[in-house]
């Protein structure tokens, strides 16, 4: 159990931030985190490596975000204006960038978040989300295009 606790502590922030990017609601993100780690504590699956655990947690967190916590459940989703008041950023740029990502469609949001925040490669994202590398590439490219149009600040997306 102690070993599992260390893993939960290690990936807690990662799962929370990913969940928040998917759900756009702090409470719901916490529910996703809770559900994800409860599944982790319950699973008998043996993991080959840290990377394997990370990929598994990412997949479960995204599935939870899209199943339990979507559609009619969250009709009362916090509007973006309220969320902006809830999560203020020190600088305007950070807020602009963060909320621009949150306004993307969920499928673009996931790959953008994993690529730019988790520094995952296209191959890693493809494995974690169990989608083709070509799909990851096209979603990443489409997401970037939308962000470029919205941010209008001459951002570099390397």
């Amino acid at each position, binding site marked *: 159990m102690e070993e599992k606790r260390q893993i939960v502590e290690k990936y807690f922030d990662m799962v*929370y931030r990913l969940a928040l990017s998917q759900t756009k609601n702090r409470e719901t993100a916490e529910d996703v985190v809770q559900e994800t780690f409860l599944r982790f504590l319950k699973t008998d699956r043996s993991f080959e490596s840290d990377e394997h655990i990370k990929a598994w947690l990412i997949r479960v967190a995204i599935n939870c975000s899209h*199943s339990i916590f979507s559609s009619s459940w969250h009709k009362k989703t916090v509007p973006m204006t309220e969320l902006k008041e809830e999560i203020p950023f020190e600088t305007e740029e*950070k807020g602009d960038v963060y909320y621009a990502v949150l306004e993307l469609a969920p499928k673009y949001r996931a790959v953008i978040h994993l690529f730019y925040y988790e520094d995952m490669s296209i191959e890693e994202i493809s494995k974690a989300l169990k989608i083709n590398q070509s799909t990851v590439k096209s979603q990443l490219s489409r997401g970037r295009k939308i962000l470029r149009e919205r941010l209008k600040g001459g951002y570099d997306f390397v």
Partner: protein
Amino acid sequence: MILFRKYYKEANDSLETRRELIDEIFEKATKKQSGKVYKLAVRYGGAIAAVLVISAAAIFYPQIQKMNENVPVTVSEVKNGETALGGNEESVDDLAEKVMPAKENHTQDKTVSEVDSDIEQKSLRATATNEMKKEARAITEDSAVIRGQVFFENVCDVDDAEKEVVSSFLYSVFGEVDGETQNQHIFEIAGKFENNGETFYLGRWRWWVIDHSSLLTEFVLDEKLSEMYECRIEEGEIIWTTENNLLEK
């Protein structure tokens, strides 16, 4: 050129996370595990008791034989449903007892020949009981687990007035606050769906803890408001068992 990656990273890094949630997760995980252990103990408790009866009979049989045939001896029977945890395996054992009732359940005086035949009967009964237990267990498990093909996307909306009626009912059953922790209950009704001709509400039960809400469980509640079960949602499918009706507590 402004680096998107840099700002996006900094923005995410500055998000505060509630690390106390880790303890809450482990608390919940531990509770769920002890529940499992308890169920397991109760489930097999009766079987263990039956084995004990047979073993005790086998151990004491030679001693009993040595005794004078005409001298009455006293035999105490182990009551079948009791388990080490004090649980009572009601359904399975009761069913077996009803099909093949014991002569007496209390202490009584018997002769060795009677004891002899009792032991034989007991042995036969134990075998038959075990078989029946297996069957009863299978029936119980089959009927207890409903794996409905109910997908989350099939959940229909419920209007606010109906939600109000359902949540008022739940408050009337469980109270506004939890008796033990004094945390305020929050019942959310997501919608309703049909399963095998019955209509169920799908909802969520939370506690309000100081300044945030904490999810206790998702649940399904039948439209007649007589049965309520914990449920889980896996890959978009709502799954629940009928083992534990929360409204009967």
